[in-house]
């Protein structure tokens, strides 16, 4: 020991004989200080990590798996986008053009049977340290096709892929052959979704159980090349991601991301105000309005592709069989009032079936709020005193407004034109079972496209044969079906836009829907958070965020 060290008070005190203990109060004080120091050291360490840790609070209870090939929920997609890479991706809020991600470039060439998409891969590594190869891409897509997951239909039914459609001629080239029934532009849009996330094939195979392609393991582990990797997922409590040191998408500032389960908006407000969380995911419209006045917070109106709509059963003998009755409902709804008073501005006015933000959206507003015209249409149809069952879900509707409040406003609007809407509120499972059986007379529901392309709404809302929304509302219009099918496979962008214009106009005039609004998703963040962005697909790139 150095002589100087031996003379320090600490060294002299530790050398004190055991029998000559200091007086009791002094000992207690020293022990208390030591305990306080011991407890405060980890707290101080945690404090120093706060600037590099981003904490989100929200209702993440929809998360059931982190396997990118299986996840089909909002939270799963949000996380998979940061754990895994896809071949192509959207950048920022521009969801009309796909951009390079794992693929640095790609070509689309016509073939005798359809189209061939050829992708060239960049040099990238998985969090396991293994290089990303074309064989990993082939394995990842094939496992989704074979697993028949909830999102498999995107690859099998929409992209018309099957095992063997995707090949790897060399380690950095992926070739995808699709038939004529699939539109290469839609396929590219699908490949941005987490269902096409690239998994480390060797890691997944190493954890395979009974031919499950590693699904059970990937449920709560990660094996991707995204900027983050999974630290742990404490179900119903929190998910913790750590920065992936091998990633090519570097996260220079945020080293850990934590998603805290907080179901209640009031609890999120409390946690954000106290600094416990940096981002609140589910503010109600009223709370959002209040947050905008707080200089310590920033309120973001982030886009969505969701539509809140009324569905009208147009089947033979049904209340809305006559197209004039459906038009009357569209004239009777006070959209501006809904958006201003109930949504506090957290919604966009739209009246056509393709959401604003997608190529093919039609921003025309053919219906003004006109109760007199609605009454006249109802009289002409011989339905001046109409009484219908109005089925609505429990909980919050799109945009965070309570469904019963929204339903009450619509009931009041309809009453003004002579339609008596008898509200029947039921849990979503009951509601959709009835809707799927074509038994809903008038229903209020939300809809989001399965993928960021106009066809995600065009086919289900207009083509009766797709057995989706048009079918559930018993609206069969052959012209609309034909237009939807033609637009889906049209490769020429200008022609495609023309087809969607015709389709949206036709459905707006004759269809079984009254679109109420396209909501924004309110996200409230601490003023110290910089670079936070959420696009209409729900993607957030955590690696681009920093904290001041």
């Amino acid at each position, binding site marked *: 020991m150095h002589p100087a060290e031996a003379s320090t008070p600490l060294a002299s005190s530790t050398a004190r004989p055991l029998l000559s203990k200091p007086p009791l109060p002094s000992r207690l004080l020293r022990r208390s200080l030591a305990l306080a120091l*011991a*407890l405060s050291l*980890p*707290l101080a360490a*945690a*404090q120093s*990590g*706060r600037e590099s*840790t981003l*904490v989100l609070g929200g209702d993440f*209870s929809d998360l*059931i*798996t982190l396997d990118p090939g299986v996840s*089909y929920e909002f939270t799963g997609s949000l996380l998979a986008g940061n754990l895994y890479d896809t071949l192509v991706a959207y950048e920022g809020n521009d969801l009309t053009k796909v951009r390079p991600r794992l693929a640095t470039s790609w070509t689309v060439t016509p073939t005798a049977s359809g189209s061939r998409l050829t992708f060239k891969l960049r040099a990238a590594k998985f969090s396991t340290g293994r290089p990303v190869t074309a064989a990993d891409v082939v394995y990842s897509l094939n496992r989704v096709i074979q697993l*028949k997951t*909830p999102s498999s*239909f995107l690859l099998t*039914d929409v992209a018309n892929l099957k095992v063997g459609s995707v090949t790897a001629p060399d380690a950095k080239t992926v070739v995808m052959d699709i038939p004529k029934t699939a539109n290469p532009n839609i396929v590219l849009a699908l490949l941005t979704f987490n269902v096409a996330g690239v998994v480390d094939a060797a890691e997944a195979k190493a954890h395979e159980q009974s031919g499950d392609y590693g699904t059970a393991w990937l449920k709560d582990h990660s094996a991707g090349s995204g900027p983050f990797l999974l*630290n*742990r997922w*404490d*179900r*119903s*409590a*929190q998910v*913790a991601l750590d920065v992936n040191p091998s990633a090519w998408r570097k996260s220079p500032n945020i080293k850990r991301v*934590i998603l*805290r*389960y*907080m*179901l*209640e908006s*009031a*609890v999120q407000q*409390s*946690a954000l*105000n*106290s600094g*416990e*969380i940096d981002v609140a995911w589910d503010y109600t419209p009223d709370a959002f309005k209040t947050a905008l006045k707080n200089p310590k917070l920033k309120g973001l109106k982030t886009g969505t592709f969701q539509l809140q709509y009324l569905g009208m059963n147009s089947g033979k003998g049904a209340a809305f069989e006559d197209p004039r009755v459906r038009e009357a409902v569209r004239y009777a709804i006070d959209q501006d009032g809904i958006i201003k008073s109930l949504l506090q501005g957290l919604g966009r006015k739209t009246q056509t079936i393709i959401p604003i933000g997608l190529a093919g959206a039609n921003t025309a507003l053919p219906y003004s709020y006109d109760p007199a015209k609605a009454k006249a249409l109802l009289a002409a149809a011989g339905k001046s005193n109409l009484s219908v069952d109005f089925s609505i879900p429990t909980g919050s509707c799109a945009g965070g407004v309570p469904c019963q409040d929204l339903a009450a406003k619509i009931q009041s609007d309809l009453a003004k034109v002579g339609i008596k809407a008898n509200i029947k509120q039921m*849990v*979503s*499972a*009951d509601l*959709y*079972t*009835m809707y*799927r059986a074509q038994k809903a007379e008038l229903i209020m*529901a*939300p*809809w*989001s496209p*399965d993928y960021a392309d106009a066809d995600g709404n065009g086919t*289900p809302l207009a083509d009766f044969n797709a*057995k*989706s929304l048009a079918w559930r509302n018993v609206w069969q219009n052959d012209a609309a079906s034909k237009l939807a099918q033609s637009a889906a496979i049209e490769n020429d962008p200008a022609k495609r836009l023309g087809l969607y214009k015709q389709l949206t106009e036709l459905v707006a005039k004759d269809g079984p829907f009254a679109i109420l609004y396209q909501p924004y998703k309110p996200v409230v963040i601490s003023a110290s958070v910089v670079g936070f962005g959420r696009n209409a697909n729900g993607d957030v790139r955590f690696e681009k965020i920093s904290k001041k």
Partner: protein
Amino acid sequence: MLIYILRRLALMVFVLWGVTLAAFLISHALPADPAAAALGNNAREAQLQEFRVRNGLDKSLPVQYGVYMGRLLTGDLGTSLRTQNSITADLKQFFPATLELTLGAVVFAVLIGLPLGILAALQHGKALDLLARIFALLGGATPVYWLAILALNVFHERLGWLPGPGRLDAYSLAPPVHSGLMTVDAVLARDPQVLVDGLRHLILPGLVLGAFSAALLTRMTRSALLEVLSQDYIRTARAKGLKGSRVIWRHALKNAALPLLTVFGSLFGSLLTGAVLTETIFSWPGIGSYATTSAISLDFPAVMGVTLVAGLAYSLVNLIVDLAYASFDPRISFS
């Protein structure tokens, strides 16, 4: 006593069988499709059909119940329709969190309710008695969700004295899971920071969940003690010259214990199975929030698993309470 316990345990099997049957019939009486609930609004018909076949939902109800009971006899509670997780594993994960919260609430309820009730009875008609009665009234009448949000707003957001929702601070990661009880696991991991953090996180939800029980215990302790204190044997004990504290502890409280024990037993059972709102507001990953999510998404196997655990918890608590009667009342025997 052993024969009594065995007889009760045997009866419990029939009670739990009845619980499974009732839960199964009620669950399946709903006019809703669990496949649609699990796969969502956008799911296509082929997906729904595949889901029904994979999960045995295409079979008749008696067959489904038979399959369920067959699995149950081997200790398998089935697979969640929503998450495809093993229900047994889910319950193993979520039940300890609820148990820890319940124990916290019971500790608060006993620490507050029992002394307050005793003091109120001893100070009958005085200011303290009035205060205790007001507390009992307010504690019993205040909605738990309102109290929870108020407590968070005051003690967490405004004063910053206590942590907010969750079992731990967002910045500290949970220790490895052994028991599922955060405090016990923190001790096993020798992590004092997590232990302190875990205990601090128990205070607000424990107090909120325990408020109603504390109020009820206050009222019951007060009334039971008041009744006993007017008995002849208490007057006799005092006349013999016994000290006041000895009269209260040895003679009055022991005789007032039986109704309190009954109340305590039913309170513990209801706390264990009824912490839904507290768990939701405090983001507590327990069996209450699991039950809510499962019920909303028509996850029948999960709902049945929760119901079974709740039935088992109630039955066991009742048995323990019945056994405890004997130690308080020598007239009770199990022979």
